[in-house]
């Protein structure tokens, strides 16, 4: 029997199974989105594939009853962990009125849901970093035990808002965790043409905070790093920068063709380290995930996603004139 890492991190068997289930749910919804896109039913997909471990590992390290997240467009694993449902995501994919993210106003991947403390996001990258810092500032002002997590890609870590936001957080010692999901590519441009330093996490020292680089395919490693950062934050020790290294398994989006800029062999090599495979193996080796349980989980998720797809496909669009609503507060 292999080493039981999760128990030494304080995670129960149920919790790690839940992590795996969430990762699998994200992967399966993502795959369904691609099928719907390629069959002409939804106009656009942007994927989480290859980053589920980092997203779910980090989320499970937080208090999902009170902490805030400012996700970026690939973070399906984060929003699922924070309470969004398959149906919510499908409604967003189909741009239907009931979509809790935007009521069909934004492209898929532009997450936001106030009741689950998921800050609304936009397409210009990195703008969410100062927002998460602002939440942390408010939390500190109110002396609340609340941490905010903001995620972004490694390319986005070149934006001014990254530096301005992290420096602000560092100066004011705010309870914010910045997690850069390094998937090696900013659309077509590889990491070495994006980042001058060896690691994104090297930048942390410039903002007076610790920086760590961890294996983004290992949800437990990410969990451990983020848990430590959250503890530091709650202790008033300030912010942390974490870089999770994995690989983007799909093209940038449904409108991209990655064969024009990277070798198939590279992708195939990365797929061997896919967390959906490696973490499943870990859970099987640890005796947590039995064959029965796996079958049961597969069937359950398939049903959920089928139902969600049907519901969303048949749900109504927003009324055309509703495009005029909610520019400003409408006090009745």
């Amino acid at each position, binding site marked *: 029997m292999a080493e039981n890492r999760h128990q030494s991190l304080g995670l129960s068997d149920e919790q790690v199974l839940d992590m795996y289930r969430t990762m699998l749910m994200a992967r399966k919804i993502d795959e369904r989105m691609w099928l719907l896109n390629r069959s002409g039913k939804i106009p656009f997909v942007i994927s989480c594939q290859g980053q589920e471990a980092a997203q779910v590992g980090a989320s499970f390290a937080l208090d999902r009853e009170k902490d*805030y997240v*400012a996700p970026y467009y690939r973070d399906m694993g984060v929003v699922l962990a924070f309470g969004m449902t398959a149906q919510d995501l499908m409604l967003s994919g189909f741009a239907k009125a009931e*979509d*809790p*993210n*935007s*009521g*069909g*106003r*934004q492209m898929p991947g*532009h997450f*936001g*849901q*106030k009741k689950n403390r998921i*800050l*609304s996001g*936009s*397409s*210009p990258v990195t*703008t969410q*970093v*100062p*927002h*998460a*810092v*602002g*939440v*942390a*500032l*408010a*939390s500190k*002002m109110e002396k609340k035990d609340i941490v*905010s997590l903001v995620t972004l890609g490694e390319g986005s870590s070149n934006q*001014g*808002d990254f*530096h*301005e*936001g992290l*420096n*602000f957080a560092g*100066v*004011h010692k705010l309870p914010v965790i910045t997690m850069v999901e390094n998937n090696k590519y900013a659309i077509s441009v590889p990491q070495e043409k994006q980042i001058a330093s060896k690691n994104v996490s090297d930048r942390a020292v410039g903002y007076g905070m610790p920086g760590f680089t961890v294996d983004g395919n290992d949800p437990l490693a990410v969990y451990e790093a983020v848990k430590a950062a959250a503890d530091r934050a709650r202790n008033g020790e300030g912010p942390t920068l974490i870089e999770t290294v994995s690989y983007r398994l799909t093209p940038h989006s449904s409108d991209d063709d990655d064969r024009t800029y990277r070798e198939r062999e590279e992708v195939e090599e990365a797929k061997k380290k896919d967390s959906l495979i490696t973490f499943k193996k870990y859970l099987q080796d640890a005796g947590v995930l039995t064959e029965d349980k796996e079958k049961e989980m597969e069937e359950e998720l398939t049903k959920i996603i089928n139902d969600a797809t049907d519901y969303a496909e048949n749900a109504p669009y927003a009324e055309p004139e509703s495009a005029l*609503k*909610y*520019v*400003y*507060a*409408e*006090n009745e």
Partner: protein
Amino acid sequence: MPVMSYIQAVTKALQEEMQRDENVFVLGEDVGKRGGVFRATDGLYDEFGEERVIDTPLAESAIAGVGIGAAMYGKRPVAEMQFADFIMPAVNQIISEAAKMRYRSNNDWSAPMTIRAPYGGGVHGALYHSQSVESVFANQPGLKIVMPSTPYDVKGLLKAAIRDDDPVLFFEHKRAYRLIKGEVPEDDYTLPIGKADVKREGSDVTVITYGLCVNFALQAAEKLAEEGIDAHILDLRTVYPLDQEAIIEAAKKTGKVLLVTEDNKEGSIIGQVSAIIAENCLFDLDAPVQRLAGPDVPSMPYAPTMEKYFMMNPDKVEQAMRDLAEF
């Protein structure tokens, strides 16, 4: 009723709102210990402490962005941009984020923050301490832009801005700060955002303007009254979204409309005002709508000769009013 300067009215409004609601806080460059480079936040640091009067790093996008995040959480941040000219690094946060927050989340999230910035010229501030930047933001639904002309309006409108559930840009004319004084009631009052205000009733020529130029127009009107020219002056107060009803009413009042701004002429707020009049007032117009504005050069030069040439003043307004009245 106490008489105070324009900038004292700013400070008073901030102080009263911070006393009223502990969610209100101030952030910006030099706003804390120094009390602001113009002294707009004078005394607030001592009264409310460094947690609610925050000296931020010198980074405008973070000032706006952190404010947006805090506002999403439920705070009422009042951010100061040291000069309106330096708001440019924060434009992405203001336009892409604050302006669209409510709309893009289908009314789930909002960003109720106020961004204050001193604008305007005539203070030997040269290109980058003199600009009027309102038109950069004035086609961004989701934003509100307030530009008051008097201390009374400053207090009432700034308090309203802080209480508003949407992001408000509050541009204060830096020359007005100590030049314009007026009576300001001590009580807690707000003025409606989105409503223009008739500052003078008249029947010969209508002047529509905002900010410091309102004072120029009023001065000119007093002189012209001696010549028997009776001016009607509408202070827009909120330049976005515009108070169409008041604009139409003021234009119809005399049929001769002069629009004044110290911003560059092309693409300024008053172009939009002109379009509203053109759409609604054809059969009441008695003269072509006139625009009096700064020249279409990038900004206000430093040398006094060139600055004076660029800058609006009561004489320029008076001349344009007389010209239109005689048409």
